[in-house]
């Protein structure tokens, strides 16, 4: 068994979903995504047993491109994140009726396919193809099934597409240039290629443009809030839960090891940008009137901290960043799902029009509360582990970075609790709010279980990712 099986299942699943018709689409999609989850767990087992689960085949002779998929601990954890979140996201949408549902679910699976490919590819060009491929489904998901005014949505989504494409095309130039030097797109050759300082700087910034837009890091974040607001709940979950992590993963996998000198030179600037994102995102989140936009800016803040962790270039930073990627993935999906549930009942996303939900729906209120607390990194939650490790790594670089980065917890607690107060507490709302259904409750319970289990026992994940991250750091420090 090797990792290409996972890709095949997801791709076949996408087609099967499309041909299953509108009625069955959601169930078929769920089935295939669960099979994919099963396969990724089986792959994890084989990996732990020391089996070879990588796959390699030549594809194009000149220029030499190969269909090469490699799984190490880092890839596997991202794989698990993707394949665990995909069924959750599909399942969470069971309460909503979609027009042309077969295309929507097919696109979701196709996107999962492309993102899985991005996490697995160990050939620069293959990686780029998957990277770009993931953009097309989300574009259509946000465009066709999104909400709000069509014209405004169109503007937001097209801006997002052109922005992201522009960034990644510069990455393509960087890859082509690297190919020039190395004679191969394979990652192990790219790690070993000799680059002058000047070349590294150019390549570093070309990569940075692609990743900073995708993550997003300030000042490339302008597309984010609008798209999150306008996309349908499933689209927002896919974007914030998994797609952002593509950028962060790529920083660790591609950008830092290929251009070590540049990464070290720009370290303060990059951490500074990450922390600026934390503070900016938190402050802007305070002022938001739209629930989804507030969550979007809170996501910007969290991701800023993760990016800062990636760029610390020490093992704690990288480890914390990966842990935080996983936990943020689950928590943000849960939060957006909560927003979606409120929208299903109240038909609004404006915070001022909500309130008094707790008295009508106590179960929902407590589930939402746990997610809010997890998001502000309460100890024993998964987020606490990640955030604390990142802050510790920032402290090793400079104590002020840690102090400023730490504001994420304080500001986060402030805006999240304030939001909770306005949305859930207060006077009883005149509108009726039914408590969570079984489907909805199930999604929450899974997410909360993951958050607490790994919050108290992160060791298995740590053990999985540490060797891979050590390997990357060794590459980084080899060339001085």
């Amino acid at each position, binding site marked *: 068994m090797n990792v290409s099986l996972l890709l095949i299942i997801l791709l076949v699943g996408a087609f099967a979903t499309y041909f299953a018709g509108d009625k069955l689409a959601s169930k078929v999609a769920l089935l295939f995504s669960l099979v994919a989850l099963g396969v990724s767990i089986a792959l994890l087992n084989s990996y732990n047993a020391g089996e070879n689960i990588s796959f390699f085949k030549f594809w194009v002779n000149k220029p030499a491109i190969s269909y090469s998929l490699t799984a190490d601990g880092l890839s596997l954890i991202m794989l698990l994140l993707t394949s665990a979140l995909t069924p959750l996201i599909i399942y969470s949408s069971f309460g909503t009726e979609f027009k042309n549902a077969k295309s929507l679910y097919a696109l979701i699976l196709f996107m999962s396919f492309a993102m899985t490919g991005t996490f697995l590819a160990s050939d620069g060009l293959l990686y780029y*193809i998957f990277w770009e491929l993931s953009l097309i489904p989300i574009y259509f998901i946000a465009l*066709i099934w999104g909400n709000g005014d069509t014209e405004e949505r169109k503007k937001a989504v097209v801006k997002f*597409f052109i922005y992201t494409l522009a960034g990644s095309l510069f990455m393509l*130039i960087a890859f082509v240039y690297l190919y020039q030097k190395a004679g191969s797109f394979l990652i192990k050759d790219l790690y070993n290629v000799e680059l002058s300082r000047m070349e590294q700087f150019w390549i570093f910034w070309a990569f940075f443009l692609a990743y900073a837009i995708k993550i997003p890091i300030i000042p490339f974040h302008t597309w984010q809030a609008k798209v999150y607001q306008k996309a349908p709940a499933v689209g927002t979950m896919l974007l914030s839960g998994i797609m952002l992590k593509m950028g962060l993963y790529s920083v660790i996998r591609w950008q830092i090891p290929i251009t070590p000198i540049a990464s070290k030179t720009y370290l303060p600037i990059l951490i500074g940008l990450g922390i600026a994102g934390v503070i900016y995102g938190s402050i802007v989140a305070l002022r938001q009137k739209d629930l989804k936009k507030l969550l979007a800016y809170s996501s910007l803040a969290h991701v800023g901290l993760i990016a800062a962790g990636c760029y610390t270039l020490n093992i704690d930073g990288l480890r914390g960043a990966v842990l935080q990627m996983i936990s943020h993935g689950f928590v943000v999906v849960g939060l957006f799902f909560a927003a979606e549930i409120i929208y299903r009942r109240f038909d609004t996303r404006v915070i001022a029009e909500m309130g008094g939900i707790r008295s009508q729906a106590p179960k929902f209120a407590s589930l939402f509360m746990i997610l809010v607390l997890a998001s502000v990194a309460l100890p024993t939650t998964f987020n606490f582990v990640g955030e604390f490790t990142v802050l510790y790594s920032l402290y090793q670089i400079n104590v002020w970075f840690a102090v400023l980065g730490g504001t994420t917890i304080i500001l986060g607690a402030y805006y999240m609790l304030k939001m909770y107060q306005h949305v859930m507490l207060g006077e009883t709302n005149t509108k009726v709010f039914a408590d969570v259904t079984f489907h909805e409750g199930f999604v929450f319970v899974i997410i909360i279980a993951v958050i607490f289990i790994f919050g108290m026992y992160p060791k298995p994940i740590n053990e999985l990712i540490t060797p891979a991250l050590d390997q990357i750091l060794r590459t980084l420090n080899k060339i001085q």
Partner: protein
Amino acid sequence: MNTLIAIIGLGILCLLFEIFDARKAIIPIVVIGLLAVLGLDINEYNASPNFYYNNMIVVSKFSSAFSGLFIILTIFLVSLGHKFYENHQTKISDFIAIKIFLLAGAVAMVSFGNLAMFFLGIEVLSIALYVLASSNRLSIKSNEAGLKYFLMGSFASGILLFGICLIYGAMGTFDITEISELSRSAELPIWFPIGIVLIFIGMLFKIAAVPFHFWAPDVYEGSPALTTALMSTLAKVVAIATLYKLVTTMNADISPAFQLVIVIVSIASMTVGNIMALRQINVKRMLAFSGISHAGFMLMTLLSTTKSSGTLLYYTSAYALAGIAAFTVILYVCKTKENEDVTNFHGLGKNNPLMAAILTASLLSMAGIPIFGGFFAKLFLFTQTIQAGFIALVIIAVINSIISVGYYFKLILAMYTKEPNEAKIPTPTIYYAIAVISIVLNIALGLFPSFVLDLL
């Protein structure tokens, strides 16, 4: 050579069909004939190179590979004619025969060994195109397009002929291998580079590169849609392939000054084409400008001539197949419409999801999004151009790719976000078949790029 003779024979056969009043059978028979010709061409590819009639015709791998592409494109265009000329049944044999003769001109243009043959080929192609452009004789726009194209085209032919004469004056021969050998000598008469430049200008006109592009939008808009499809796919591919052959065979090494000219023309073409395309509301005009920008991209192959013929073949195949798919959808949508404005495409995603998906795919291919052929075409082109040392040009090309997304997506947005303005119109099966086949071929190009890339 056999290919060329067979094509001309097929064209004459078409004319005979009219005499025997067998117009109904014409398109199936021609398509079968063209498939047979494709077989001949593949045979010739395997047996190449061959020289005929004192090097008048040279059948090389280059010429037969490109001829194969032209034949495939012609098969698509001829099959589309079945529905398109529904209302002109009496004239159908003329339309088809002209297309076959046009193909003969195209094949002659890539397999010439002598400048006289080259000029014959280009004239056969151009005259066929003039006729096709004005073939909708009751439409004033079509007449305008034909006349405009004819006037500008004959002007370009004049320049081309003048260039050929100057080269003859300098070298004393029309044979391109002899010219190539003579051009290696140290002392070249001044007429030679001037002649080359004039030929270059004439060909830039044919591929509609800036600053010789002014005819393209008007002619594309005015001509019947099927002719526009032919111009933007077949005619453009033929012209760029011929230009490539002329530049690489006659002029052994390209001087830095000439390279600078190519770089400037290429940048100007893609930038002007893209920026003008952003403002268009007529889809045919928009694709005309997009074609101008693609001409700029294709010109980049001239910068690294040693091994870029495979890339050129790949780029042109991906571009032409996407073009065929796009135009099939345009033909379908605008069949009953006055014009080809973007508004006609509103709500196509709801009315006819398959056609909308095909148009989306072909536009994504032109924009260079993976997994379509267009992406790899651009990738190989960029790789080679960076190898040749023109990194700044590649960066400008990339910026242009981003701009191009703007107008390609305008059409996609119109299809998916607007409400349809009328009920669904039935789709002829042949349109479905051709659109699907061409887009599947395009994706297959993307999945197995080596297949085409290694032909040359």
